């Protein structure tokens, strides 16, 4: 299958590893990945901050960048939700975008991607993955199939981490209070790695864990699925 990769602007700027991981996983499963080089951003930050008008050219550009592809895959639940939920209203249509784990499980019908990652991992279901995309147990089913990986339950897993896009800056104090509770719950699991399907949330929680010098790492689910035996 020929699959378009939507990297997202945040991953492009700060987390290139997530994009590389998606390519590795899909190629390992025998699919061809194309990366439309003109792509930039879906406009989520603008849309959610109340800059709807500024968002329309970005949405149009997105349609052009990914035109002609039957499947577009992205390592960001929240950008996928943005495109799927809001593009129909903004620009009259929504391209066929999938979050990586839903693409693997629903479209390709795969839960074992042949990865190995011998570490203790806890999973944080990000709000947009959980409630907008309804990912359910898809990400954890994929993680459970990884050789050597021990998945540990995260207390209050479904509680928001407090990132919320511009909320993290506009309401920095509340955001940090929420992130602190999430990071403490992560530490309580004793896991070496906390994984999620949104690097934005991981950037927030990971930023706290790093400032505390906790040693617990954040990793995108794609990176774990890409680790070879």
């Amino acid at each position: 299958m020929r699959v378009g990769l939507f990297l997202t602007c945040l991953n492009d700027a700060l987390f290139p590893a997530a994009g590389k991981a998606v390519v590795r996983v899909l190629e390992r499963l025998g699919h061809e990945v194309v990366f439309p080089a003109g792509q930039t951003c879906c406009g989520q930050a603008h849309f959610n901050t109340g800059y709807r008008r500024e968002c329309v050219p970005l949405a149009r550009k997105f349609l052009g960048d990914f035109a002609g592809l039957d499947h577009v895959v992205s390592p960001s639940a929240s950008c996928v939700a943005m495109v799927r939920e809001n593009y129909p209203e903004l620009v009259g249509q929504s391209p066929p975008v999938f979050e990586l784990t839903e693409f693997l499980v629903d479209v390709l019908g795969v839960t074992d991607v042949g990865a190995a990652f011998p570490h203790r991992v806890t999973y944080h279901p990000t709000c947009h993955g959980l409630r907008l995309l309804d990912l359910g147990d898809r990400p954890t089913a994929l993680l459970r199939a990884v050789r050597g990986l021990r998945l540990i339950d995260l207390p209050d897993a479904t509680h928001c981490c407090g990132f919320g896009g511009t909320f993290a800056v506009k309401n920095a104090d509340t955001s940090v209070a929420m992130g602190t509770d999430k990071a403490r719950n992560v530490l309580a699991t004793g896991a070496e790695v906390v994984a999620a399907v949104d690097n934005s949330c991981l950037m927030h929680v990971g930023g706290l864990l790093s400032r505390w010098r906790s040693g617990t790492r954040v990793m995108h689910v794609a990176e774990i699925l890409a680790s070879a035996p």
Partner: protein
Amino acid sequence: MSVWLGMPPFPEAAREALADTQLRANLRAATATIRAKRAAVVAERSDWEQLREAGRAIKDRALRDLDTYLLQLEERVTAAGGTVHWARDAAEANRIVIGLVRAAGADGVVKVKSMATQEIELNEALAAAGITAVETDLAELIVQLGHDRPSHILVPAIHRNRAQIRDLFRREMPGAGEDLTDDPVALASAARAHLRREFLTARVAVSGANFAVAETGSLVVVESEGNGRMCLTLPEVLISVVGIEKVIPTEADLEVMLQLLPRSATGERMNPYTSIWRGTTPGDGPREFHLVLLDNGRTTALADEIGRDALRCIRCSACLNVCPVYERTGGHAYGSVYPGPIGAILTPQLRGPDPVADSLPYASTLCGACFDACPVKIDIPRALVHLRTKVAHPATEQSTMRAAAWTLTTPRRFALARRLVPLATRFARLPGPWRKWTHTRDLPAPEGESFREWWRRREGSP
């Protein structure tokens, strides 16, 4: 709706609240308990989603033909011996109530907890007119004795714990002994003894209503303590102040609403007291009944295609109890009688623009927990984003967002900007608005090859 005087916008108010560790502990304990109760009773109903859908449909039907149903309500209330008054805003509503209390020759009223009268600040208006109002709902009484503000729709004193309440009673409640303990039963009996005197002497009562049934002209109050029933039956004159969005078409609609409300609100299958009353009955209950129908910004909200969804709200407070922002900041930070997620979309619409109201649509991470919990399916995140497009944006934010959009519309500009990222993140403390980030959190410092470089190398293209 009036502004709470001296309240700062949400981010500042939240900062103060976050510093209060006692408040955070009280809120965490209270919301966690009620969340668990609600989840359990909701899980019992296999038809919960259908019930929510029915609730949404009933309220939408009522709002779509609001004028028709309100006129029908007026006609039925009048036919049953009541009097209907229409109040455009808070001042008009307060004037009407004060006039009625004076006409009854009373200098005091007992009140059953009512959001509408809080919204119009009736107690303050009554006080200014020399009329004492006594709140008879236990939590509301705690707030009143503490010269405090309610911080939750259903549990107005949620920010206080038992020890704090005992101290307050000892200090402020006539008749509460020095030996009063913080045992809930002891606290409740102290309040009961105090309130009994008020019930038996009051000649006028003021209530709100959870629902007003157009078909029959009946009003409905749902409560747990029985104080509402006392207020509705003992006094000679009953004045109900009700927002116009409380109307529902038929009595049969109550079948749905009375299943949704207690489960969502207190996590109970049914609340202990549900009172339904109609007009007046000679020799039974109040001799006079007045219904004050309150607009106060509601018709303006109704005109907004997305914002109007907030008028479906049945004030169950489920959205507050699941909201992670509310759980950390408490209700006072919202600067309004309607706190939490519903307050963040209702307050700006009822009140119109001001710095506090403009800050409220941003008091959310858009996590969506409120939408999942809402028994009438108000898509609160969608309404928040919609209201964000309508508020005044700070000039610096506007220029930043426009510059970002400009940068992102061509890959060349984006590529140029991206080159600055490793440089910027190398600073442990970033300048400008980003300082709010790096003050407490690190930023990742991407090392090595960018995705595009890696991709080009693999593709073997230049």
